[in-house]
C-alpha cells in the first residue's frame, strides 16, 4: 500500500482533475471519456485522470490543411469481434521468406 503522503497527494490530484480537468471525448463514439489534466513533463505529456477510460491517442484527420496546429484526440477500440483464424501451420500458403 502507498504511504499516506502519496495517498493524500493522489486524492488531491483527483480532486483537481474533477474541478479543473479538461473534458475528453472518445473520438470513435462521441461519448465522454472523462476528465484529465495534461501536464508537459520532460518532453512528454503527463496525463492525470482518464482512469476509467481505455483510449489511445492519435492526431486527428483535418479537412483543411493547416501547418500551425493539429488536433490530438483519444479513441477507444471497438469491442473485440475477431473471427476464428486457423493456426499458422494450417494456412494454405507457406510463411513469407526474406
Amino acid at each position: 500500500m502507498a504511504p499516506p503522503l502519496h495517498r493524500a497527494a493522489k486524492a488531491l490530484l483527483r480532486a483537481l482533475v474533477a474541478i479543473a480537468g479538461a473534458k475528453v471525448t472518445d473520438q470513435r463514439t462521441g461519448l465522454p471519456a472523462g476528465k484529465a489534466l495534461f501536464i508537459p513533463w520532460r518532453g512528454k505529456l503527463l496525463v492525470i485522470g482518464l482512469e476509467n477510460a481505455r483510449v489511445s491517442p492519435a492526431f486527428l484527420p483535418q479537412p483543411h490543411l493547416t501547418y500551425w496546429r493539429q488536433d490530438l484526440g483519444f479513441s477507444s477500440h471497438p469491442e473485440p469481434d475477431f473471427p476464428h483464424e486457423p493456426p499458422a501451420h494450417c494456412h494454405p500458403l507457406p510463411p513469407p521468406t526474406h
Partner: protein
Amino acid sequence: MNHRLTAILSHLPPTESDRIAAAWQASCPDSDILLVCGGSQDSFNALESSPKVFVSDPRLRTRDHQRERQSYQGVFSAISAFIAPFPQYKFIHFTEFDCVPLHHNLPLWLENRLESENADVLGCRLSRIDGTNHPHFLYHAADPAFHSLIHQTSSRSDPSVVLSMLGCMSFWKRNAFDAVANVPDASPFYLELIIPTLAHHLGFRVRNLPDQSPFVKPSGSFKNLALLQQAGAVMAHPVKTFPTHTP
C-alpha cells in the same frame, strides 16, 4: 459423467471450499465440479470434495496481483492435466470461489451463449487495450518478452492486438482451453491480459458478455443477489465472499 466441467479455484479453508463446491453442484446438476486448490497442501489434503487438484505454482500466490503479475498458468495446466484422461469433457467453465451462480444451470446457459456467439471463449469485461492507456497494457508493453511471446505464438495477421478480460470467470471450448493452458513461457504475465490475448492469437474467437459484465465487477460487493437475478444476472461476483444462501 457430464460433458461440461466447472472448475472452482479456491484458497479458502477446506470447510468453506467444500461448502462452495456443494453449492455449485446443487445449482448446476448438469456439470461436473472440480475443486482447484490454490491454498496450502494441508488445506488440500483436508478437502472432502472430490475430484480436486492442487496447484503448486508460486506465481499464483501473489499479494500485489497486478504488479507481481499473478498467473493462472499453473491453474490452467492443472485443470488441463486433470481432464486429459476424460475426452468426454467438451466445455470448461472456470470460476473463482467468489463467483455465485444465479441461474439454475449456469454452465448450460454459457454453452448456449457460446454457440450463439460462434465463439471459443466467453468472458466478462473483455476489451481491446493495445495502444491505450490501460495500465496493464502499458506495464507489459515495457517488457520485450511479452511482445516476443505474442509474436512467436500468433497465427493472426495483426500480432499487435492485446485483449483484457476479468479472470474471475470464463467459459471455454476444450480445445481452446487446452491450447492456452499448454503455451510454454506464458507464466510471467498478468492473467487478465495474457489469457484472452493468447486465446486470440492462437486463432480462437473470444467474445464478451456485456449483459453480465455489470454483475461481475472487479471490486465492490452485492448485498441483494435476488435483485440482481431479477435484473437479468445469471452470475455475480461479490468479491472475496460466497454467500451462505444463494437465490
